[in-house]
């Protein structure tokens, strides 16, 4: 039961993480209409994935692995763009974030992007969904204890959905003005994970074949086959043995973005008011 639980959890979290972030963002922006549409889209995507998995089984066809990995790469790349957009927009409104999210001016800025977010939630479920549904069906037909295996997969997916729901509820109650930096750092780590994940699936889709040597052995952190590994890989996109390409992608994205997020908006300069204290001018005669 544990192996199928681990896989169900990992694949599920990769989808529910994005959905939770988008749901929290939409709710904080007061976009309840689009939020309802998003939930509808997610439910539709889940049913579509199940239908496709059953269809593949009925027609006795294998899931085309390369095309599946190609889809995952494209969706992950779009998700990186979406989360980066969120981070940049949030930083631009850091001090008045919560108010700005609800303000009509900010709403107008985002209105075109809001439907893109709804579509993103749908696609995020499709990205992992078909593969996960195929795996779940296979689990229910496993040799040995099929019920236990299938149940493990279902429980893993349910826990992933619960985590996504937790991100949504927690994100809704989050005081973005006060916890902006923390939220932004977490989003940077999620986006960096998506970059590494996109590079990983790009190799599996045969699009990216350089820099494939092992960069570092992270099996102490991501112990394959454990529940903790499914959370680390699902949320932070870290593989047990990342390749040079994946590690470079993660670092090249995370480090500049972390600097961008953590640096104060205005560096203190002589003569500039910062927080109400005027700094002495170096050449002022006293």
């Amino acid at each position, binding site marked *: 039961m544990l*192996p199928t639980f681990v*896989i169900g959890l990992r694949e599920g979290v990769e989808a529910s993480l994005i959905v939770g972030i988008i749901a929290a963002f939409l709710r904080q922006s007061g976009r309840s209409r689009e939020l309802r549409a998003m939930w509808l*889209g997610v439910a539709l995507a889940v049913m*579509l994935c199940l239908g*496709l998995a059953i269809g593949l089984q009925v027609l006795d066809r*294998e899931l085309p692995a390369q095309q*599946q990995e190609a889809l995952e790469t494209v969706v992950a790349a779009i998700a990186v763009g979406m989360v980066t957009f969120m981070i940049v927009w949030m930083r631009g409104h850091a001090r008045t974030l919560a108010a700005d999210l609800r303000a009509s001016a900010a709403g107008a800025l985002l209105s075109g992007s809001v439907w893109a977010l709804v579509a993103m939630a*749908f696609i995020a479920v499709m990205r992992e969904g078909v593969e996960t549904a195929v795996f779940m069906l296979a689990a229910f037909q*496993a040799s040995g*204890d099929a019920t236990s295996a299938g149940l493990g997969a279902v429980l893993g997916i349910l826990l992933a959905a619960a985590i996504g729901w937790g991100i949504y509820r927690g994100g809704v109650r989050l005081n973005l003005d006060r916890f902006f930096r923390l939220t932004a750092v977490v989003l940077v780590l999620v986006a960096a994970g998506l970059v590494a994940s996109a590079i990983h699936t790009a190799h599996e889709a045969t699009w990216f074949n350089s820099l494939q040597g092992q960069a570092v052995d992270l099996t102490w952190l991501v112990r394959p086959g454990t529940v903790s590994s499914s959370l680390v890989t699902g949320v932070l996109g870290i593989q047990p043995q990342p390749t040079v390409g994946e590690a470079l992608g993660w670092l090249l994205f995370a480090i500049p973005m972390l600097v961008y997020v953590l640096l104060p908006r205005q560096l203190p300069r002589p003569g500039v008011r910062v927080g109400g204290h005027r700094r002495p001018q170096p050449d002022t005669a006293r």
Partner: protein
Amino acid sequence: MNAQARIVGVAVTLVAIGAGLTGCGTSSGGSSGTQQKLSVTLTDAGCSPSHLSAKPGSIAFTVTNGGTGKVSELELKNQQGIILGEQENVVAGISGGFSLNLEPGRYILSCPNGSTEDNGSLLVKGEPVAATGGAYAAVLSEATRGYQTYVIGETGKRPLPPVDAAGLRLLRPADGGRPRTAGLGGLRARRAVVNGGSRGEQVSGARYESA
């Protein structure tokens, strides 16, 4: 456009993509007769056996889990490291596989996270399989042969022109015009037969000669 319409629009697009995916999916059952079968078991060490050999042509790989929680994936790569086929998420009780058409050469069998046997090899030795267009050529020449039998039966005992390398009749008009294939000529012959049968030997004013 309201919310529901947008959602339905996106869903329809993705159903189309999904249908394409299903259509693109390779058939896992019912392959042509001479498909070799290779079986790999995943263990904590990695791939077991880690060195395989096969003949060129169609090979079906079956991957099963031999009780390991660490290794759950098999990848077949060529010497450049490009993944040709893979099966993921192979855990206890769940087996999977994929099929490939392989040319002679050396390939890499990769079982990620294995301790010692995570990179094995597959050696494909023998005569390369000639490209005959695969299953379609066989089906096509079978169908053409059957249709020729029908045409002979319908139009009397007129001998038919010779067959070319692809199993298709080459029809050369008597006036030295462009050769046509039996598919088109055959259809016109059928229509001539339906229209009265007297023009079965002559189609569109062209006369066909036998070799």
